[in-house]
């Protein structure tokens, strides 16, 4: 039997790959409680990686898509609407399958995209890994969901704010940067917090049967399923991974709550938008 310190050393970074811990995962009767605690915790590295990067990249894209959707442009607005419908109307689980099987069909050697002055080579074999391909799917998905929230916020920006901006002679990008964007963000923030939470929860879908977990390095729920398969006892690993996710959720609520206070700092106290836990659940 391993001691707790030994399993900490062997498994706390195991999710990064074989070089960062024990070669093999614990098996059968050899599994201790500490193994489950630390291996599932190490899987959280990937949950945080997927959620963090997808939120950061998706945020920027979502602002662009939302502005395109809200504009009166005859081409861009329906295009953005179609994109939002496509990713919000279908299950993320199927999206993972579809994109994985599409990425597998791309030529292994990479695709050259000539940009005139420089040729960009897209590394297509990276797209078949969860760390890149799965991230791409998550980014597209969260972009669609967040863009929908931002469009709703753009629609409800107080008319007076826009008129005041006009009265100051602002227009174009200045008006967007100084009036529209901050108001949009402030209005959308409580629901955007929920989006961030559920994006984090849906990172558990990455390694479910579409994208492979190379060297058995997966996220927390992948290891929880591994332990349940090994021990045939669902009453420890699943509640444990649930507890980890509740901790992660509370951390997100805390961080986004700080940002919410920052966004609302100019308003009188009672008008501040309150955060309400009203999630979108599965997608």
């Amino acid at each position, binding site marked *: 039997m391993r001691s707790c310190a030994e399993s900490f050393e062997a498994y706390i970074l195991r999710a990064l790959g074989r070089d960062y811990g024990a070669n093999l995962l614990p098996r*059968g*009767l050899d*599994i201790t409680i500490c193994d489950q605690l630390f291996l599932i915790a190490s899987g959280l590295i990937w949950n945080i990686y997927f959620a963090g990067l997808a939120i950061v990249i998706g945020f920027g894209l979502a602002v662009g898509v939302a502005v395109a959707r809200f504009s009166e442009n005859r081409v861009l607005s329906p295009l953005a609407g179609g994109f939002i*419908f*496509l990713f919000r*109307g*279908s*299950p*993320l*689980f*199927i*999206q993972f*399958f*579809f994109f994985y*099987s*599409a990425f*597998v*069909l791309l030529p292994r050697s990479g695709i050259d995209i000539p940009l005139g002055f420089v040729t960009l080579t897209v590394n297509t074999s990276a797209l078949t890994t969860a760390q890149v391909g799965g991230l791409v799917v998550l980014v597209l998905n969260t972009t669609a969901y967040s863009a929908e929230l931002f469009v709703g916020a753009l629609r409800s920006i107080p008319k007076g704010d826009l008129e005041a901006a006009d009265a100051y002679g602002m227009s174009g990008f200045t008006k967007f940067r100084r009036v529209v964007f901050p108001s949009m963000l402030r209005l959308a923030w409580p629901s955007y917090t929920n989006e961030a939470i559920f994006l984090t*929860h*849906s990172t*558990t*879908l990455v390694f*479910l*049967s579409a994208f492979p977990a190379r060297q058995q390095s997966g996220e927390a*729920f992948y290891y*929880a*399923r591994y332990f*349940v398969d*090994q*021990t*045939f*006892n*669902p*009453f420890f690993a*699943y509640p444990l*991974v*649930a507890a980890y*996710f*509740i901790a992660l*959720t509370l951390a997100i609520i805390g961080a986004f709550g700080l940002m919410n206070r920052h966004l609302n700092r100019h308003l009188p106290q009672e008008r501040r938008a309150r955060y309400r*836990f009203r*999630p*979108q*659940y*599965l*997608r």
Partner: protein
Amino acid sequence: MFSFCTDPSILPDWQWFACYLTNATHLQFYRAFGVVLVLLAITAPVALGMGMLGALALRSRFVPLAWFGKGYVNIVRGVPDIVFFLFVPIALGQGIEWVMHHINCPDWDQPIRQGNDFIVCREAKVPPLNSARWVYELYAFLMAVVAFALVFGAFAANTLHGAMQAVPRAQIETAEAYGMTRAQAFRRIVLPQMWVYALPGLSNIWQILIKATPLLFLLGIQDIVYWARELGGQKTSLFAYPHPDWRMWYFLGLLCFYLFLTWASERAFARLNARLSRGQATAAGERMRKAAA
């Protein structure tokens, strides 16, 4: 299916596809779409019923029952639901066998959990040993229904509870002034009017339920995801219909199926909402009243 399908290798393209898309495995694939729809048709009312019970528990003036309702709703909502979908069927299966074991084999002296094995006596197996294959499949399907109903019941309980609170308080007070009991006021005033408030939330839950159905695959049921993977995978010339890796196209088909389902239900809910708003004391109801006058 067709008379010309005896030797597919010599057929021209359109006939080859006609035969390919109607062979025995594809017919099972199409039946799997039916399984998804059946799951939706069974789960939705069961979850709504669970939600109603949960909402009544939340409203209850009997404190332990209200606590129970709160615990149920918050635990399910706070945990990623995929954990529940995998946890409930296996935990429930073991729970049922554990109970059956204690009823049927009281003389059994060995522990049930030996190391990593879960051992119960022969009579306690559910479904019974050597059952037909369809019995196992039905059992797995029912487990999935229970898991879905538990999770979506908690979501629905929350929505329905909110809708009950949204019925104007003055109307309930009026009912009480007329001498109705709490139960009568609930049945005659709250229950008929709450649906217009509940509908946006319920429509949202329905959309989520639709998008959760591919997770059936994880519970070992031969659903559309299973068949899409089976049929789309590369087939060598050993098979009657050899083809390269077509999984992408199969999953594209599933994507379109789900897009159609969500689009159609969005429209259906919009119509239902208009129907329910008639004569209600809400802005939409007021607008309809004015348009008619």
